[in-house]
């Protein structure tokens, strides 16, 4: 509980004060319960203002502060650190957003905006008043990492960790490393065969003492938490326990397999892009493309197979991202073998983004023809012997139907997530609707999961091409390093806790935590719920499940929230 609170209201140059009467806000809240000191600042985040605040905290013996300024997304950490420098517990600091959520939103009515700002500051004061000092949990870390998945992302990540002095264990479920790259054929943009790239990495890895590769291997058990996980793995017949500070999931994707008869799939002359790429890299005769002993002269590609299925129930809603570029690149590889080939691309949208647009342009120049279709009207596929006939509506010439006879139909199949049921059961990593792993924030925290110490990279988190996969695996490596190299890690203390005297041990909360942070313990005279602080994420998902209000999240306690609600209604009650 804080009862000597300092409140600082920011002008933010004019960003706030142009639309909110900052002085009036300060004057009004000065008399609030618990407020010992109130002041305005031109720029609260400036060094001089921070020094002044530190002095005020020390001189006036303040035990809590409220700063009304911009969004906490910008300066929560800044001011928490400032509080700490002043000797205050950073969790007795509350930031009130009167810029993005007040002055900037209400530029037309200064009086009403000022009233709103007063209410918001009052709520902030109430929150600080009901706060308790919290201390982060410090955990020592092990300077080793476990990478699950020995494809390009995992291998490249292992090398990056090795270079930073972190021991990397790579667990690969297959008998050899390399994943999808082993049989993906020639890859863009460097025209190498996928397996050659893997061979290069393997050579490099063999030279290093701090990378261990386990094949035919899987994780069977995980205990512990961030900084110190205890992982049991089996590799072949061998069983071993690894102590690691972090886990990186690079479990990759599998190519979408069309359903029987989906766009003619099942007919011997209807194959997937992945199979076609294999065919191309095995085609030995220059000048002729041979399939099943027959020369191929006309090829049709149908795009978005297994991707962007917005109307299909349980369909893959996402774009598989790499396939437009890959199909266009493949078409060029085919032209390289036989420039006289006729190639027809039936697409929904061509997304050869970034540098790969040139593949599309080059296909246009080399005579490939493109036909756009929409999901509601997919091409109709029929066959007569070995010939495939594709009927598609052409939007370019008065919606005529076009019949394309060809020797080979290539289904440009997308990516789907590996199921990893056993692994997910052990790690509890959040999975999105699309079955790929979910990051905390796609832009701000793109390789972190809500489980501290578990990172995701490569196509395990969504469709990517190879360079994007490696980029994310580099990010996961550096996030791992920044976590482990210090030797210890602080865990946010804003997690769930049990109000012991209220808990009746009814166990209604038993299944509310998907991370299994809740267990039940014997406490003196009764069985009550208990939270494992290293596992709890602080989401509060368990809070509404408790009929006794015995569960709450520190920093968002029942008393804090209810007092905030009450303080916002103060004016209304006075009237």
């Amino acid at each position, binding site marked *: 509980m804080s009862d000597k609170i300092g409140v600082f209201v920011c002008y933010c140059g004019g960003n706030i004060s142009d639309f909110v009467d900052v002085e009036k806000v300060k004057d009004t809240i000065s008399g609030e319960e618990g407020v010992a000191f109130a002041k305005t600042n031109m720029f609260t985040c400036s060094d001089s203002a921070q020094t002044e605040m530190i002095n005020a905290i020390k001189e006036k013996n303040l035990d809590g502060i409220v700063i009304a300024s911009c969004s906490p997304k910008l300066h929560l950490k800044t001011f928490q650190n400032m509080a700490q420098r002043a000797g205050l517990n950073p969790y007795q600091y509350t930031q009130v957003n009167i810029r993005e959520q007040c002055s900037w939103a209400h530029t037309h009515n200064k009086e009403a905006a000022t009233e709103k700002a007063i209410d918001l500051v009052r709520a902030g004061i109430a929150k600080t008043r009901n706060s308790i000092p919290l201390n982060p949990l410090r955990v020592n870390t092990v300077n080793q990492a476990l990478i699950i998945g020995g494809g390009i992302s995992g291998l490249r990540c292992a090398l990056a960790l090795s270079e930073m002095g972190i021991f990397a264990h790579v667990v690969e479920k297959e008998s050899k490393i390399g994943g999808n790259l082993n049989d993906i054929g020639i890859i863009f943009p460097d025209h190498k065969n996928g397996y050659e790239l893997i061979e290069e990495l393997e050579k490099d890895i063999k030279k290093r003492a701090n990378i261990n590769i386990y094949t035919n291997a899987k994780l069977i058990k995980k205990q512990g938490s961030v900084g110190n996980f205890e992982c049991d793995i089996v590799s072949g017949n061998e069983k071993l326990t690894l102590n690691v500070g972090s886990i990186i999931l690079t479990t990759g994707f599998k190519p979408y397999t069309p359903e029987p008869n989906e766009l003619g799939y099942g007919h011997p002359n209807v194959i997937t892009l992945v199979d076609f790429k294999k065919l191309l890299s095995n085609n030995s005769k220059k000048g002729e493309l041979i399939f099943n002993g027959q020369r191929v002269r006309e090829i049709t590609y149908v795009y978005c197979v297994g991707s962007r299925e917005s109307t299909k129930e349980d369909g893959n809603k996402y774009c598989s991202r790499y396939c437009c570029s890959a199909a266009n690149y493949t078409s060029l590889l085919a032209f390289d073998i036989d420039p006289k080939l006729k190639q027809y691309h039936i697409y929904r949208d061509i997304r050869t983004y970034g540098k790969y647009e040139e593949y599309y342009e080059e296909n246009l120049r080399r005579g490939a023809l493109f036909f756009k279709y929409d999901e509601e009207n997919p091409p109709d596929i029929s066959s007569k012997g070995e010939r495939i006939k594709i009927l598609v509506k052409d939007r370019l010439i008065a919606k005529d139907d076009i*019949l394309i006879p060809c020797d080979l139909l290539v289904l440009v199949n997308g990516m789907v997530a590996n199921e990893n049921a056993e692994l997910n059961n052990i790690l509890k990593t959040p999975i999105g609707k699309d079955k790929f792993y979910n990051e905390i924030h796609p832009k701000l925290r793109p390789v972190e999961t809500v489980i501290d110490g578990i990172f995701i990279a490569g196509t395990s988190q969504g469709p990517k091409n190879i360079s994007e996969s490696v980029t994310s695996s580099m990010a996961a490596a550096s996030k791992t390093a920044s976590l482990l190299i210090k030797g210890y890690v602080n865990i946010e203390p804003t997690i769930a806790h049990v109000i012991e005297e209220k808990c009746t041990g009814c166990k209604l909360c038993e299944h509310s935590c998907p991370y299994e942070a809740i267990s039940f313990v014997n406490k003196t005279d009764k069985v009550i719920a208990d939270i494992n602080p290293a596992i709890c994420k602080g989401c509060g998902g368990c809070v509404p499940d408790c009929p006794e209000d015995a569960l709450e999240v520190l920093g968002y306690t029942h008393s804090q929230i209810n007092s905030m609600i009450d303080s916002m209604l103060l004016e209304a009650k006075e009237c």
Partner: protein
Amino acid sequence: MIKVNSGLIDKIKIDENFNASACFNCGTCSALCPVGFDILPRKLFRYVLLGDEEKILESTDQIFSCLLCRMCEEQCPQEVNITENIRLIRSYLAKSKLGV
């Protein structure tokens, strides 16, 4: 319905200058055309690329009414050799269809 006839293009595309497939169908070519082509070059090229001989023959007068003035090429974002393409289509028609 148009059945793709992949053989026709090989007869018309007798050299690399024929680059109708580079057209991405924006239609800019028609904007300043002095003739006011009834059939847009992109549409004509599409028929050619698909091998629809009947549709091409229907457009004979149009094909021969092009001035070859290259106004369209000046605007074309894809650098399609529109007039040379038309000339080669004429060449095919004159030789194979019009009995010249």
